[in-house]
C-alpha cells in the first residue's frame, strides 16, 4: 500500500472514530438526570407543567433521541453547535476563541517540551550511566511525581510571590503585544513543559542507546566521521522513531494537563471552559467542547502515525 492510500484509509477511520465519539458523548448525556430545559428553568423554580413542556419543545428535547442526535450532528458538521445555556451565546465562536487561547499555551509547551527532552534524551544516552545521565533521570522522574497544580503553585510562589518577576495570575487583562503574552504565558508554559519532559526523554534515551549499539553507527564512527555527524545524521533519524509516537501521546496528555494548568493560573482556555460547563451543568457547551477536544486528540494521533510512516520507509501498512 502506498503512503497516500494509507493516509486515505486512516482519514476514513478518523471519521468513523469521531462519529463513535460524538455518539458516545451524546449517549452519555441521555443518561443524565434532568435535561437542559429543567436547568434553564431551574433558576426560576418553574419545574413543572406547561412551561417545562414549552421549553422542551423550544429546545427540541421532545423529539426522540436519535433525531436530536442527528440534528446536533447536522449542525456540528456545519460548525453550528447551538447555544450555551449558561452564557446564552452561540457555542462555536466561543469555542474557537477559547481553543485559540489554549493553543497559545499548548503549542509553545509542546515545542519546548519536545526540543528539551530530545536534547536531554540524546545527552543522557551518549553519557550513559554518567553523573549527567543520573541527574537527568532524577529531574524527569520528579516531573512525573509532581502534579501540574503543585508545580504551578510552587512556580507562582517563587516567581510571582518572592521574586516578583511575573504576574501570579494569567487572567486576560488590558494589554497586548508579544511582551504582554510572554509575561502571562511564561509560568503556565513552563509548568506544562516540565510536566511533559519525562516520557519523551526516557523514550529517546532508551531508543538512542539501542541505535548507538548498531553496527552502522559503529561503522560511521570507525570511518572517522565527527561525533556530531554520527549522532545527527546516522543515529538520530532512527533513534527518533519511537519518540514520534510518544509525542502524540504527550499531546493527549497535554489536553488534560491544560485543564489543570488553566485552572491554576486562571487562564481562559478550553480547559476552563470545560470546567465551567461542568459546574454550570451546561450540556450543549460540554458536549461540543468534549467533542472538539477528542477531535484534536485523534488528529494528533493520525499526524503522528503518518509522520512515523514517512520517517520510517521500512514500515508499509
Amino acid at each position, binding site marked *: 500500500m502506498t503512503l497516500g492510500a494509507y493516509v486515505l484509509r486512516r482519514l476514513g477511520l478518523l471519521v468513523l472514530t469521531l462519529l463513535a*465519539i460524538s455518539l458516545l458523548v451524546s449517549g452519555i448525556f441521555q443518561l443524565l438526570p434532568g435535561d437542559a430545559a429543567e436547568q434553564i428553568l431551574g433558576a426560576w423554580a418553574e419545574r413543572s407543567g406547561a412551561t417545562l413542556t414549552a421549553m422542551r419543545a423550544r429546545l427540541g428535547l421532545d423529539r426522540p433521541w436519535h433525531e436530536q442526535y442527528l440534528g446536533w450532528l447536522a449542525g456540528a458538521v456545519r460548525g453550528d453547535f447551538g447555544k450555551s445555556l449558561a452564557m446564552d451565546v452561540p457555542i462555536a465562536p466561543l469555542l474557537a476563541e477559547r481553543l485559540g487561547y489554549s493553543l497559545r499555551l499548548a503549542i509553545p509547551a509542546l515545542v519546548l517540551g519536545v526540543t528539551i527532552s530530545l536534547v536531554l534524551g540524546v545527552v543522557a544516552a551518549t553519557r550513559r550511566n554518567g553523573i549527567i545521565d543520573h541527574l537527568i533521570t532524577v529531574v524527569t522522574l520528579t516531573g512525573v*511525581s509532581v*502534579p501540574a*497544580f503543585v508545580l504551578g503553585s510552587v512556580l507562582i510562589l517563587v516567581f510571582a510571590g518572592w521574586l516578583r518577576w511575573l504576574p501570579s495570575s494569567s487572567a486576560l487583562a488590558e494589554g497586548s503585544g508579544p511582551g504582554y503574552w510572554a509575561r502571562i504565558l511564561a509560568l503556565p508554559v513552563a509548568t506544562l513543559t516540565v510536566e511533559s519532559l519525562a516520557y519523551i526523554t526516557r523514550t529517546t534515551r532508551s531508543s538512542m542507546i539501542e541505535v548507538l549499539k548498531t553496527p552502522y553507527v559503529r561503522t560511521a564512527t570507525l570511518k572517522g566521521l565527527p561525533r556530531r555527524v554520527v549522532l545527527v545524521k546516522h543515529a538520530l533519524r532512527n533513534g527518533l522513531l519511537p519518540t514520534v509516537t510518544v509525542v502524540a501521546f504527550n499531546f493527549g*496528555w497535554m489536553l488534560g*494537563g491544560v485543564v*489543570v494548568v488553566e485552572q491554576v493560573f486562571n487562564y481562559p482556555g478550553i480547559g476552563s471552559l470545560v470546567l465551567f460547563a461542568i*459546574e454550570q451543568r451546561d450540556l450543549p457547551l460540554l458536549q461540543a467542547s468534549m467533542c472538539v477536544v477528542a477531535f484534536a486528540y485523534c488528529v494528533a494521533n493520525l499526524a503522528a502515525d503518518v509522520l512515523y510512516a514517512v520517517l520510517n520507509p521500512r514500515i508499509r501498512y
Partner: protein
Amino acid sequence: MAVTIPRPAAIALPRARRWPAALVAGVAILGTFAIFAAVGPWIVPYDVEQFHRASALEAPSHAFWFGTDRYGRDVLSRVVVGSRSTLAMAAAGTLLGVTVGLVLGLGSGYVGGRPDEALMRIMDIVMSFPSLLLALLVVSVLGASAVNAVLSIAVVFVPRVARVVRSAVLGLRTAEFVEAAQVRGERGSWIVTREILPNLWPPIIVEACVRMSFAVLMSVSLSYLGLGAQPPTPDWGLMVAKERAFLVQAPWVVLFPAAAIVTLVIGVNVLGDGLREWLMARKTADE
C-alpha cells in the same frame, strides 16, 4: 577467552533472599501514609475541623508545626488525616479498574474471535479520550463527589489494564500446560482461573502499581478541580485549591499538602520499581 559460568543458584538465590532497597523504601513510605489514614484522627494534635480563629494563617510554630490555614485549622492535622481521602480514592479506583480490566482482559483474550475484536474496538474508543478528560466526562455525568471520582478513575483504567492482561493471555493461550488442560477436557473457566491466572500475577501486580501512581495523581487533580473530595473533608488536592489565594501570604498552607502528595507519588513509584525488581529476581530464582 575464558569465561567462568557461575552456577545459576549462586547468582539467583542471594538476590531472591534479599529485599530490594526500593521495595523496602516504597513499603515504608506507603505504610506510613496507610497508618496515618487508618489512625490519623487519633494521633493528630487538633481536630481537623476545629477553628482557631485567633491564630488564622499563623506560620509554623511550636503550637502548630505546619502552621494554620485561613480559618485557623491546624495544617499538620489536616495533612495527616488527609492521607485517608487520597489513599482511599486512589486505592479504590485502582482496585476497581484493575479488577474489571482483569476480568475483561482474561475473557477477551481466552475467548478470542469476534467478541474479542468487538470488545477491543470499544476499548480503543474509550482510550481515544485523553485520560483526565475522560474522567471529567464521567464526573460531569455522575456529579462531583469522591465516590464518582473513584468510578471515573476506574473507567479510565479498565481499557488500559484489559489490554495488558489480554496480551499476556494471548501469550499463554498456546502454552503447553494450557493445551494439556484443554486436552484433558477441563472447562474454560477452570483453565482461565487455575492455569492462566496464576501466571499473570506478576505483570498484574506491577501494572497495578503503575496504575496506583496514576490514580493518586488523578484523584488529587480531580479534588483540586473541585470534582473529587468535597469540603470540609481534609484532602490534599482540595487544600491546595482552597488556600490558593493565600499562597504568597502563607505558603505553608499549600506547600505541606503539596509535599505530602509528591512524597506519596514517589513512594508508590519506588514501590513499583522495587516490586518489579523483586518479582523478576524471584522468577530468575524459580527457573
